[in-house]
C-alpha cells in the first residue's frame, strides 16, 4: 500500500509559540489511523494545518503525491478530503437535508439524491428528522449529521476531529459503530480523538501526541496494551 497522505517534519507556530514540532505521520490507503493525545497537545492544529489554517512554517504535507501545505482551504476540500470539524459545526438554521446538500459543494449535485438515500440508511435517525432544523437535534444526532455531511462529497480520505466530543458514552459507542461500518467500505479515515480507548480499538494504527510531538506510534492493539498509554490516557485500568 502506498502512502495516501504524509506529513514530513511539519512545524507550526502560533506567533512565538511552537504548536507542532517536526511531526511526521503517514496515512496509507484504506487504513484507519488515529491520533490521540491530551487537550492542547496539537491534534486539532495538525488536522487544520491540512487546510492551511494555520499554515505550516516548515515541512511538507503530501497528499497523493502533491504538496498541499500552501494550497487554499477550498482547493484542498474539493480534492477528495472531507472533514467533520471539531464541535460539529453544522448549520443550525438549515434543515437536515439542506445541511447534507451543503456537503456536495465540491462535487456538484449530480449524485445528491442517491448519496442522501445512502446516508439515510447509514444514519436512520437523520431520515426521521430530514426536514427539521439542525439546531433542534440532540448532540449525537448533530454529530451524525456532521459525519454524513462530510461523506456527501464522496471523499477519499475522511478526517474526523473529536467525534465523541461532549456526547454520552452510549452515543459515542453508536458513533464508533457507524465509523466501523464506514471503514468497512474501504474508506480511509484519519481520526483525531481524546477518547483513546474507542479510537485505538477502531484504528489499524495510532499515533500518540504530547506537547506537539509524536511520542509513540504503533498498531492500535499495541498502543492499547502499552503501559505508558494506559497510564496516561486510559485511566490506568
Amino acid at each position: 500500500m502506498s502512502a495516501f497522505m504524509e506529513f514530513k517534519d511539519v512545524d507550526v507556530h502560533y506567533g512565538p509559540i511552537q504548536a507542532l514540532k517536526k511531526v511526521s505521520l503517514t496515512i496509507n490507503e484504506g487504513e484507519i489511523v488515529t491520533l490521540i493525545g491530551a487537550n492542547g497537545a496539537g491534534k486539532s492544529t495538525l488536522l487544520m494545518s491540512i487546510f492551511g489554517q494555520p499554515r505550516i512554517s516548515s515541512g511538507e504535507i503530501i497528499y497523493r503525491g502533491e504538496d498541499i501545505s500552501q494550497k487554499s482551504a477550498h482547493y484542498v476540500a474539493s480534492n477528495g478530503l472531507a472533514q467533520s470539524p471539531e464541535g460539529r459545526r453544522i448549520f443550525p438554521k438549515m434543515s437536515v437535508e439542506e445541511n447534507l446538500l451543503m456537503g456536495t459543494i465540491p462535487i456538484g449535485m449530480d449524485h445528491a439524491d442517491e448519496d442522501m438515500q445512502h446516508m439515510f440508511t447509514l444514519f436512520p435517525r437523520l431520515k426521521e428528522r430530514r426536514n427539521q432544523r439542525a439546531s433542534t437535534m440532540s448532540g449525537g444526532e448533530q454529530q451524525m449529521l456532521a459525519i454524513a455531511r462530510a461523506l456527501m462529497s464522496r471523499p477519499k480520505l475522511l478526517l474526523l476531529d473529536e467525534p465523541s466530543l461532549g456526547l454520552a458514552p452510549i452515543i459515542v459507542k453508536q458513533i464508533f459503530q457507524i465509523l466501523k461500518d464506514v471503514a468497512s467500505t474501504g474508506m480511509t479515515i484519519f481520526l483525531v480523538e481524546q477518547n483513546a480507548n474507542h479510537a485505538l480499538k477502531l484504528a489499524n494504527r495510532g499515533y500518540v501526541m504530547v506537547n506537539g510531538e509524536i511520542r509513540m506510534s504503533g498498531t492500535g492493539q499495541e498502543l492499547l496494551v502499552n503501559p505508558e498509554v494506559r497510564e496516561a490516557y486510559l485511566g490506568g485500568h
Partner: protein
Amino acid sequence: MSQAIGIDLKKSSVDALIAGLLALILFGPIVGVLLDGYGFKTEFDRVAWIVAIVAFGRFMLSCFLQTEKGIALVHRFARSDDGAIVLPPGHKSKMVWVIPLVIVIGLLVPFIASKYVLTVVILGLIYVLLGLGLNIVVGLAGLLDLGFVGFYAIGAYGLALGYENLGLGFWSMLPIAAIMAAVAGAILGFPVLRMHGDYLAIVTLGFGEIIRLVLINWSSFTHGPNGVSAPLPTFFGLEFKRRSSDGQTFHEFFNLPYDSGYKYMFIYLILFLVVLAVLFIKHRLVKMPIGRAWEALREDEIACRSLGLNHVLVKLSAFTIGASTGGLAGVFFATYQGFVNPSSFTFFESALILAIVVLGGMGSTLGVVIAAFCLTVLPEILREFAEYRVLMFGILMVVMMVWKPRGIVRVTRTGFASRKGASK
C-alpha cells in the same frame, strides 16, 4: 376585583417606588435645576410632577402585568423562538394572487396619486432598493456593512458627473453606475475578507465616510459642497423640460399641456419596474446555490471552508451584488432630486438603511419592502413632529426589538431540495 386575580399590591408598590427613585435621580438635575444667568434657580414642583407620573405609571403597569392579559403579554415578549421557519420543499404559497394585484396597483399609482404623494412613493421605492441591496450583504451573507451609503453616493454622483463630463444620460448611466458601484463593492470587499462583525463594521463605516469626504473635498471634479445637477430620464429621446434646446419635448410631441408631474410619473414607472426586476432577481438568487452559500457563510464560516466553499468568491459576490443595487438606487435618487450634494450621503443615511433591514427582518424581502415604506412615508405623515423624528425612530427601534426581535416579517423560506439535473 384586583384581589380576585391575585395582584400583589406590595410588589407593585415596590416597583413604583424604585421607578420613582430612578426618575428622581434622572430628572432631578435635568429638570429641577434651571440655569439663570450665572446662577440657577430650582423648580422642584416640576420634578415632583414627573416623578409622580412615572411612579404612578409604573404602579399601573405592574398591576396590569399581573392580570391574565398582562401575563399573556409577557409571554409574547419572552418567546425566544429563533431563526427562520423552514417550510417543506416544494411548498406553494396560497398568497400568489397578491403579486399581480400589487403590480397592477403599482402601475396605476402615478395616474391616481397627486404629485406630492407620488414623490413620497418614489422616495419609498428608492429606499426599498437600498434596503434590498443591503439585505443581501447584512441579512443574507451576515456581513455588517455600515458604509452602504457610499455605493448610493457612487450611483448618484455617477449619473451627475457622467452627464457633466461625458455627456452620458440617464439610460446609459443606469447600467454603468450599477457596474461602478459593483466594482467599488469588490474593491471594498477584498481588504475586508478576513474581518468579521465589529471590525468589518468599522472598516465599512470608514469607507462610507471616505466617499463622502472625497465628494466634499475634491471640488475641482465634484464641485464640493455645492453639488452637481443631475439629468432627467428621457422618453425615447424626448425630454421632460418645459422647453428643449434640441428637438421636441415630451408634452410638445404628445400635444399635452406642460405639467412637471409627468417627469415624476415617468421616473416612478421606471423605478417601479426596476424594483420589480430586483425583487425577482433576488428571489431567484436566494434559491440558487449562491443564496444558500451566503446563508451558510453567515451561519458558520469555518464549516463552509471545510466543506470546500470558496469564501472569497461568495463574500465578494454578496458585496458586489448588494453594492450594484445601491448604485441603482443612487441613480434614481439623483434624477429624482435633479441635484446631488454630499450632505445627502451622511452616516445617518447608512443607519437608516440598516434600520430598514433590521426592522424588516434580516433576510426577509417582504419585511424590507414594508419597513422601507414605513421609515420613509411615516416622517412625511408626521411632518408636524419633525423635531422628534429621531426620537421616534429610537422608540420604534426599542419597541420592535422587544416586541418582534426578528423584524416585522420573520424569514420563512422554502426548504431546499435537490432536483434532478439541477446542476447540469
